[in-house]
């Protein structure tokens, strides 16, 4: 049966995939707001605009002073005009949990147009960047973690290709997925002038331990753990049956109960047990629970299905 059926089914499945591949699906973006992104400016646009603005201001200042020289024959030179871009905010007062690149020195350029002098201050300080949560060295049990921190207002924060949400006050957050073990998250901030800063935080992800089939409902004085296993789970034979086995406290009794069959056995001196249970009245293709319990009250439940042959 299976070869002929599988062969035809796989050809029919391939035909469906081909039909879908050949079709002109709409990918109806209008129906999904997430697919309608705001226009993204190309990378570096902000820096180019800033540089252009600085140049324009320098030229304008030069023209103004030249005009003053022409139309004000006063021999006294006008006071120098100083203007600059917004200066970076103060360093954070709280101690961040991360390392941050120390600031470099501020330099200035001077544009001189006789007989006056105009000074333009450029922002060459890297933006402040700190990670406030999670703490460096934290051990986490959640795979998906929201990293939070603070940076200079207007700066962008990224971890690799992923960009954080930054509010007007410079608070940022970014959700990342951790791998089991140690994870080094490296964040970079870029301010409006194009200066960069970096901060890192190391966290450890320890996935929760998987559940086991052993259940202890009644504490005992260090009894051997009750471990139960099933052999088949399904059976096409008449009468249907399954075989259960495991380990437990020597001398205790293991009882198997279900709506359609039951059995019992004793845990041997070596701590192992085995029992075969028939389910003569089991309904066809309808899974039902089978409970295994030892005399210490420890219980495990499996599912069994009588399948047609």
């Amino acid at each position, binding site marked *: 049966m*299976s070869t002929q059926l599988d062969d035809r089914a796989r050809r*029919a*499945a391939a035909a469906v995939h081909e039909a879908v591949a050949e079709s002109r699906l709409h990918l109806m973006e209008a129906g999904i707001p997430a697919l309608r992104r705001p226009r993204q400016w190309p990378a570096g646009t902000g820096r180019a605009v800033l540089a252009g603005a600085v140049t324009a201001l320098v030229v304008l200042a030069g023209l103004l002073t030249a005009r003053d020289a022409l139309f004000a024959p006063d021999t006294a030179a006008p006071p120098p005009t100083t203007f600059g871009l917004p200066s970076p905010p103060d360093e954070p007062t709280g101690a961040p949990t991360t390392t941050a690149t120390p600031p470099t020195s501020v330099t200035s350029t001077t544009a001189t147009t006789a007989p006056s002098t105009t000074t333009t201050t450029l922002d060459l300080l890297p933006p402040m960047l700190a990670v406030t949560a999670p703490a460096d060295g934290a051990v986490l049990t959640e795979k998906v973690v929201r990293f939070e921190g603070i940076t200079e207002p207007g700066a962008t924060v990224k971890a690799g290709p992923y960009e954080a949400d930054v509010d007007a006050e410079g608070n940022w957050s970014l959700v990342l997925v951790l791998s089991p073990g140690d994870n080094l998250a490296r964040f970079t901030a870029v301010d409006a002038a194009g200066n960069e800063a970096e901060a890192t935080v190391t966290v450890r992800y320890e996935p929760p331990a998987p559940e086991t089939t052993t259940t202890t409902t009644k504490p005992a004085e260090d009894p051997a753990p009750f471990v139960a296993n099933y052999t088949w789970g399904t059976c096409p034979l008449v009468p249907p049956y399954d075989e259960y086995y495991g380990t437990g406290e020597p001398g205790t009794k293991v009882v198997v109960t279900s709506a359609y069959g039951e059995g019992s056995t004793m845990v041997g001196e070596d701590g192992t047990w085995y029992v075969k249970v028939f389910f003569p009245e089991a309904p066809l293709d309808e*899974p039902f629970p089978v409970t295994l319990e030892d005399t210490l009250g420890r219980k495990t439940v499996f599912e069994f299905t009588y399948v047609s042959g």
Partner: protein
Amino acid sequence: MATPDEAVVVSRPETFEAFYRREFRRVVAIAYALSGSRAGAEDLAQEAFIAAHRRWDEIGSYEKPEAWVRRVVSNMAVSAFRRRRSEAKALARLAGRRQEVLPPLEPEHDGFWELVRQLPKRQAQAVALHYLEDLPVIEIADILDCSPNTAKVHLHRGRRALAAKLSEEGP
């Protein structure tokens, strides 16, 4: 244990847009096979993705968000009411264009999926996922939200019924 310098943050939860573009056509295929509707399959898939989009903060963090969207679309595709509603919407949308969205299948393949759709719903879903997606029983169980044993039973009964129907048809 890896030192911090060797460890990396490997990824961010996938964006909905990337997930949508990656999975959309495969989900349409499931909808097409299980509904048989050339006009409505895309709308069924779209509806499933919109449901995922509404809860993407939660679903996007799942280990397998694709299993969730397959469960939704396979349930919708075997629901007669949902299928008719999606067909009506799609036909209304297509009225001005006078064209089908999906091309028809050859009679042999169309006949096969028609037999699948005649199966009980859960069997039809298990069979479609098994053959269209080439999924093992444990992943079919994950999508159908049942135990592996139950999924195994649905698949077994579905395949047995299909084999019987195909043998009645003859070669």
